[in-house]
């Protein structure tokens, strides 16, 4: 490496990590300089999160040396790393939902008076810290009562507050929308100016080019290269990550014809008090309905009511011509619905079951317990989707909880595709998925529609949404407020519809 | 009308159920208002019960203590409140001015009676005895073991070769006897069984039969309590002797309380119930018929 040692802050040399059956990191070198934002990139399963965990002592590495400020360190756990001035936000939000926000921020370093925690002082400090992120929330409330996005911001705030020298962020922006990302970047720039080294992992390449000074790319647990951002083009970067050129990565929108076929499902005045205001929705064969809105606008609730997770208390649903009652996910599945939930950790994966079982599960549940899929059928199913979605795993019997975040997401998608539903609801399906797979999934969605499946896709990425949607529902304040079609399907129009207050929104 | 609180240990055996039944029956006959508290085998619950009786202001308290120790404080409170306490079926380890009297059998004596019967019936022949103990640590188990050992101490021909707990239950009695038989050459080394209660003996008798031996002949069976089922076994020649522990402890207790409240007569400190020995010669079937409806 060509770094002059004076500016090097944190240096890792030859880091290796082996899990049973797989060498996940193979002699990776990594150099972080003072006052730089360093993007760590790579495909799903490349080993980014593992490298971070080795750098912070959350995993014991099998080999390699770590030097902080030129001195050899060997953190034996996160606590020790924190003591050395390294703050980290891990990929799955690692905060405790059962503690208050303030406790989460100050766990282990609560201000004390006479040996007892001074709750008032702690809350005051917590409010002060969160104000810097534009958050004005009740810091005494349980963390779990806040949405994923707010939790993410709190995790970031905690890590920033802890980090004297190094801040590591593993996919911090996956569940944030544009505004929060802006806030985060302002904080990051400020820290950079103060001389911290910041490691930033993401699959959003736009964000990389916006903020990173330097890029390091991993592939299959090996270092591919490390370069200043200024010397790297987008195409070059993608090629480095995937090891091949990607034919079509940019979001170019082919005009989607409006679909006016037969209604697959119809919802009239469907809603649930306190969750989502009653709405009408007609789903036609082969169409993709996009759903847009700010955090907390009721997108997830819409999906949950449609799938029977939350029982609707008003309105009626029709599938084909007959009225149905969607009282449970099971009932919805019986009607040919599928639902890929937003929070993969708590609602998606069955961590201890193998990849094969996770993929076969929904199909098995629909067939009923008495008609088991044979092992051979399960294997075939799993192999098919491991290949189709490019799930990176050592084998199909690996517990799905041991897969990398993006690959877990793909596994859940595979579970629902295996069911071949007529109406599939996807809540943030591309969260944490790498560029290559992202393109694959978009192509997959298009292919599914061509084959007659209807989709409802919730996504915070408006560019992505307009690529495949035939129309877009816009939500605000837990109500459906607008529907965009045809030439209105542009990110700008969506933003406009979201921002419009009450009257005069675009489309109808 | 007299109100009497009765703190019972629990209902861990048929014998105890019979004691409870008889107590209630006696109270009913005499027009006593009985407050019954079941302690689920826990001393702390019994103490709570006695304290609650005091708080309620009952006229007298019957206490069947689960263990001998630990009653001083609560008995002191009863004394302060001038409520007489009568102990049932076991005594306590406390100053004797803290209770009015104890209606009990002598547990050590019971063991001695059983041992005596055995020494008499083997009459000098060598005899290996196996012992089924009660629940480890319980006072009947300790005392009945001691009494039996005292009785055979001077008889070198009698030897306890195995002794294990059968928890006072039939199931454990059977299981433990099975292993005794296996461990002692298919039971051929065993000449007699001494069980701390009849229930274990009944279980053990089945084990002996299933091993192809004849209980009552190949292996002598002596136990304590005199519950109805052992008389059936005796009638069938499968058990040899039992020592009675009468479940009617409440009768004498009520007698002394009535005498005390009517005429102020203070009873002796210990009213010992008889530990009567029953053998196959005592017309077991008749006794069975007498006993079978007493709530055992």
């Amino acid at each position: 490496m060509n770094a002059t040692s004076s500016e090097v802050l944190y240096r890792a040399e030859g880091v290796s990590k082996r899990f049973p059956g797989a060498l996940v990191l193979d002699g990776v070198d990594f150099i972080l300089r003072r006052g730089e934002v360093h993007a760590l990139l790579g495909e799903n399963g490349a080993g980014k999160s593992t490298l971070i965990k080795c750098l912070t002592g959350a995993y014991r590495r099998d080999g390699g040396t770590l030097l902080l400020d030129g001195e050899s360190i060997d953190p034996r756990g996160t606590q020790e790393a924190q003591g050395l001035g390294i703050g980290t936000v891990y990929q799955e939000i690692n905060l405790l939902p059962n503690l208050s926000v303030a406790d989460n921020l100050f766990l282990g370093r609560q201000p004390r008076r006479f040996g007892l925690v001074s709750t008032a002082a702690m809350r005051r400090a917590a409010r002060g810290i969160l104000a810097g992120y534009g958050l004005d929330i009740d810091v005494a409330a349980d963390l779990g009562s806040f949405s994923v996005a707010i939790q993410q911001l709190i995790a970031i705030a905690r890590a920033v507050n802890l980090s004297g020298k190094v801040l590591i962020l593993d996919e911090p922006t996956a569940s944030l929308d544009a505004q929060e990302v802006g806030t985060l970047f302002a904080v990051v720039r400020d820290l950079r100016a103060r001389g911290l080294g910041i490691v930033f992992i993401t699959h959003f390449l736009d964000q990389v080019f916006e903020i990173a000074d330097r890029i390091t790319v991993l592939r299959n647990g090996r270092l591919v290269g490390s370069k200043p951002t200024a010397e790297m083009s987008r195409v070059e970067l993608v090629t480095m990550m995937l090891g091949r050129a990607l034919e079509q990565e940019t979001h170019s929108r082919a005009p989607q014809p409006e679909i006016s076929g037969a209604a697959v499902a119809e919802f009239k005045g469907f809603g649930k008090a306190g969750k989502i205001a009653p709405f009408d929705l007609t789903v036609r064969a082969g169409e993709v309905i996009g759903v847009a809105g700010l955090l907390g606008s009721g997108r997830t609730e819409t999906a949950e009511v449609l799938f029977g997770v939350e029982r609707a208390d008003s309105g009626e649903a029709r599938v084909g011509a007959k009225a149905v009652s969607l009282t449970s996910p099971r009932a919805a599945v019986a009607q040919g619905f599928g639902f890929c939930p937003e929070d993969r950790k708590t609602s998606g994966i069955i961590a201890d079951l193998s990849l094969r079982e996770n993929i076969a599960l929904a199909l098995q549940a629909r067939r009923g317990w008495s008609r088991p899929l044979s092992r051979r059928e399960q294997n075939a199913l799993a192999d098919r989707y491991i290949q189709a979605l490019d799930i990176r795993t050592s084998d199909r019997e690996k517990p799905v909880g041991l897969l990398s975040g993006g690959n877990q997401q793909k596994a859940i998608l595979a579970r629902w595709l295996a069911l071949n539903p007529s109406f599939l609801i996807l809540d943030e399906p591309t969260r944490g998925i790498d560029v290559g797979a992202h393109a694959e999934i978009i192509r997959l969605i298009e292919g599914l529609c061509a084959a007659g499946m209807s989709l409802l896709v919730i996504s915070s990425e408006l560019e992505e949404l307009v690529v495949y949607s035939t129309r877009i529902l816009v939500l605000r304040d837990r109500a459906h407020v607008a529907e965009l079609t045809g030439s209105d399907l542009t990110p700008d129009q969506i933003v406009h519809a979201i921002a419009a207050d009450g009257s005069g929104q675009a489309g109808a | 009308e007299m109100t009497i609180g009765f703190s019972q240990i629990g209902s861990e055996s048929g014998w105890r159920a019979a004691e409870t039944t008889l107590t209630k029956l006696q109270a009913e006959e005499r027009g006593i208002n009985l407050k019954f508290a079941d302690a689920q085998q826990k001393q702390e619950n019994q103490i709570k019960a006695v304290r609650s009786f005091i708080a309620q202001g009952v006229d007298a308290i019957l206490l069947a203590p689960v263990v001998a120790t630990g009653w001083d404080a609560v008995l002191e409170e009863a004394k302060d409140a001038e409520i007489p306490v009568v102990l049932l079926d076991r005594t306590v380890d406390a100053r004797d001015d803290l209770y009015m009297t104890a209606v009990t059998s002598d547990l050590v004596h019971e063991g001695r009676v059983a041992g005596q019967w055995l020494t008499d019936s083997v009459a000098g022949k060598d005899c290996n005895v196996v012992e089924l103990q009660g629940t480890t640590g319980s006072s009947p188990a300790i005392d009945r073991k001691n009494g039996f050992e005292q009785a055979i101490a001077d008889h070198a021909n009698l030897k306890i070769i195995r002794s294990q707990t059968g928890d006072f239950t039939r199931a454990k009695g059977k299981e433990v006897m099975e292993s005794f038989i296996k461990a002692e050459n298919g039971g051929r080394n065993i000449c007699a069984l001494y069980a701390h209660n009849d229930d274990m003996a009944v279980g053990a008798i089945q084990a002996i039969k299933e091993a192809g031996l004849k209980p009552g002949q190949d292996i002598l069976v002596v136990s304590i309590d005199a519950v109805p089922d052992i008389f059936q076994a005796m009638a069938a020649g499968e058990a040899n002797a039992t020592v009675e522990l009468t479940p009617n402890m409440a009768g004498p207790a009520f007698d002394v309380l009535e005498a005390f409240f009517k005429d102020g007569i203070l009873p002796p400190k210990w009213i010992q119930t008889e530990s009567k020995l029953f053998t196959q010669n005592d017309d077991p079937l008749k006794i069975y018929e007498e006993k079978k409806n007493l709530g055992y």
Partner: protein
Amino acid sequence: MIAAAQAALRRFVPQLIALATILALNALVFPGFFDIEFQNGRLYGSVVDVLNRGAPVALLAIGMTLVIATKGIDLSVGAVMAIAGAVVAATVAGGASLATALLFAAAAGIACGLWNGFLVAVLGMQPIVATLILMVAGRGIAQLITEGAILTFNHQGLIFIGSGAFAGLPMPVLIWLALGAAVTLAVRRSALGMLIEATGINRRASTLCGINSLVLLLAVYAVSGFCAAVAGVIIAADIKGADANNAGLWLELDAILAVVIGGTSLLGGRFSIVASLLGAMIIQSINTGILLSGFPPEFNLIIKAAIIVVILVMQSPAVQTLYDFLRSPSEVPTETPRQLPGEAEAPESLGRPQ
């Protein structure tokens, strides 16, 4: 196919080693331990006793395994045994036919199980407390039926179930073997096993998959109740009487222990009924060994605790890791061992090997 069989066998290696060790120890304290004779039309010996006396715990362990796999626990099984025993005794004593009595007992067990399942699955109570309620009240119900006494009976058919023999083996042994095999086949040949495991690991995600976790939980507790009822009938039949006060007392702990020795995690998920049955036999071997050894009863608990601790320590994930580590020196990293016990990192809900 062969690979799968090998993998399945590997799953039982720790239990088999433990069982073999205990049996060897037993033979040490009692040389005649492995002697088996044929006598009165049945096999007769200490090993047969282990199989026979282990029947109640083995039966309980079958249902308990399923309950624990769903992240639950069933403390009420001992009380349910007492209820079933009381019911069967009361019915035959009342002159009913054996079939009717057995039917009643089974129905009582299943009803108890459904009650537990209702509290857990529908009312959302925590399994320990939900089943604690029946653990306390159930014995009361059983005593209510027997009125605190030992309810004896003389129905030869019923007695045969407890102490008869068929093809040389005691009936209880045949019953737990048959029920174990039946339940194992039922969950493994159908999709039930997978659905139970999924529900135990992540109930919310499983429900979202369309699994009817409510019915599944009800069914699992009902099976546990049924197994407890069978165990209750057996021990009542064995002593020709229903001892509501003592039947199954504290057996729930032994059953849970058997399941854990069998390697099923108390956090739910992967389970193996066969391994739990091995666990039950390990516990009974310890018990029988203690009885045969002739040690004074004061030492029973200490011996049992010590042996169990040793077995569990040998099976603990940390020691397994260490063992694997020692066995495969080729994979040892160049540096000093770093995967310290307790620092082995696994994502939440993955705290289990295998």
